[in-house]
């Protein structure tokens, strides 16, 4: 009578099977959690090419333009407002007026056709982020956008995940600074400044769903 009984060598094989059976799921979970779900692998560092090689490092860094010179509505509206070509032309009608790099800008201005910039910091459409709500509450540009003054080509600095938002909403103090230092780069808040600002402006960020989702 022929019967299939597992031969001896399968004994060692069995160990591997059990190892795989137990270790596999653990491994996968860790992998998904630490990598697949991790913003570092997903979003941070996103650095698309722009139609015009505009360098923040030059304008905001070397020339020391204030962020609000271009992003005018950042402290009174939801949107920080990418500047119209007209804003560029304020200077570039005098300087670099011949430069080919600025051709798209001049075109936009004279033909009144918009420039198509590529969005870097892109939240899902069901997230309603309001710049003014943060800039007027003592949150610096740098906190979310990083050292813009050192970026020749802008890239995403922060994860911009819900987790990341909530962490700060639950404990804003470390990130708070006096509103007048809004645009200062590389700013080191004085010890206790956060707590002070929090107290002064009655800052208690809500963590309700409807804070961001409507």
């Amino acid at each position, binding site marked *: 009578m022929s019967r*299939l*009984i597992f031969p001896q060598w399968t004994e060692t094989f069995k160990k591997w099977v059990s190892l795989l059976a137990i270790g596999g799921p653990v491994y996968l979970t860790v992998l998904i*959690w630490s990598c697949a*779900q991790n913003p570092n692998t997903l979003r941070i560092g996103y650095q698309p090419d722009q139609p015009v090689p505009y360098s923040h490092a030059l304008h905001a860094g070397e020339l020391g333009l204030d962020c609000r010179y271009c992003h005018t509505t950042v402290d009174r509206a939801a949107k920080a407002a990418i500047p119209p070509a007209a804003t560029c032309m304020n200077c570039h009608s005098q300087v670099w007026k011949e430069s080919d790099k600025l051709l798209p800008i001049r075109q936009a201005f004279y033909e009144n056709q918009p420039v198509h910039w590529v969005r870097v910091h892109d939240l899902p459409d069901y997230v309603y982020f309001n710049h003014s709500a943060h800039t007027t509450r003592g949150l610096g540009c740098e906190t979310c956008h990083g050292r813009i003054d050192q970026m020749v080509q802008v890239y995403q600095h922060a994860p911009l995940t819900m*987790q990341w938002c909530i962490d700060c909403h639950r404990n804003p103090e470390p990130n708070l600074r006096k509103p007048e230092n809004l645009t200062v780069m590389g700013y080191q808040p004085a010890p206790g400044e956060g707590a002070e600002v929090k107290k002064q402006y009655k800052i208690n960020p809500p963590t309700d769903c409807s804070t961001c989702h409507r």
Partner: protein
Amino acid sequence: MSTEATAAAHGTGDARAAFREITHDIAWVAENPKVPKAWYGALGVGLLLLSIGGYCIYHVVMTGIGVWGNNNSVGWAWDITNFVWWIGIGHAGTLISAILYLMRQGWRTSINRAAEAMTIFAVMCAGIFPIIHTGRPWFAWWMIPHPNDMHMWPQFRSPLMWDVFAISTYATTSILFWYMGMVPDLATFRDRSKSKIRQLVYGVLALGWRGSARQWHRYERAYLILAGLSTPLVLSVHSVVSFDFATSLNPGWHTTIFPPYFVAGAIFSGFAMVMTLMIPARYLFNLKHIIKEEHIEAMCKVTLATGMMVGFSYSVEFFIAWYSGNEFEQFTFLNRASGPFWWAWLSMVSCNVLIPQFFWFKKCRTNPWIIIILCIFINIGMWFERFVIIATSLTRQWLPSTWSYYVPTKYDVGVFVGTIGLFLTLFTLFMRFLPSVAIAEVKNTLPEAHAGKEH
């Protein structure tokens, strides 16, 4: 002394014969080269219904719940009705194999294997609905706790979450229990099989079972432990399912009697289904002498008992509604019996309370045809019970302005039919290719197994 003599002296000769006979009879079902036509028929029907169901589910997922009859007042309808019905059917299996085992009910051995199989297939059918009834099934996995970058976890206050855990636990345990019980029999199949493929397949499934004393010892232990584990599940699963309704505040749902009431109902329908399946199987694969008349009769008695529990629950519901003095409750139950869905209520009561009364008579408990018919009625009645609970309560809510009605579409029907197809397909395949009766255990219950004890 000749071997025969010894054998005779120890009274084991006919024992071997008897064992061999049983082994042969059961294994023959899987080995018989010419399969009964009826089997092909059943499989064919199963596959047909299954494909219909598949098509309907595809449309539900692609187009939206709107292809069903559900509406702004009736959030749940056939989807959850079917879910609860299948879960209920899935109850008899574990009950028979676990609780009756612990109670040392010998007669269970002939049917427990098939009953467990039925349980697993029923739970599979049930499991489809919680997923496809959601508006966005592709996100149904959000109900499973998993780490994510949103700081979001499921909401554990929701009975639906409890369902997720209760049912997955139940499914896992039942499958383990079922498979472990099969191992020795699979080994038997392996040993008897002629073709290489069968040897390989059964061989792998048998996990190298040799039938040594130690293996038997461990087997018995594990079996006992699993039986102990799954016993509370029999009660917990349907209690949790009933919480879906009991914890809500809708009149007709918001009642404390639901857990026991649902469990009784589940066992009721489960046994009915076992009989609906086993009685034909008995004849088809001539297992009459293994699944004996008294086994069937015993099941009829259980059905009768649980049926009366269910009937009692119905009356209690009405009494409490009246006793509560709450006009919303009172109206709801009055409306069940006399409102738009009176016909559903009527079929529920007649099938679940009146029909089982026939089992008082021995004739009804022994005549296979009568039993089958009664059992089918009971299954229909139990489906209506769930439908009545859901539909009548949701169509006549608190504010009269929101009163509505529910009419199923062909896609409601199609999906339900599809799950029946799945069930039928799996069960026919099981009957053909796996040991449909627990050989080893049946042998255990034979008088011959205990021969020589008197010496």
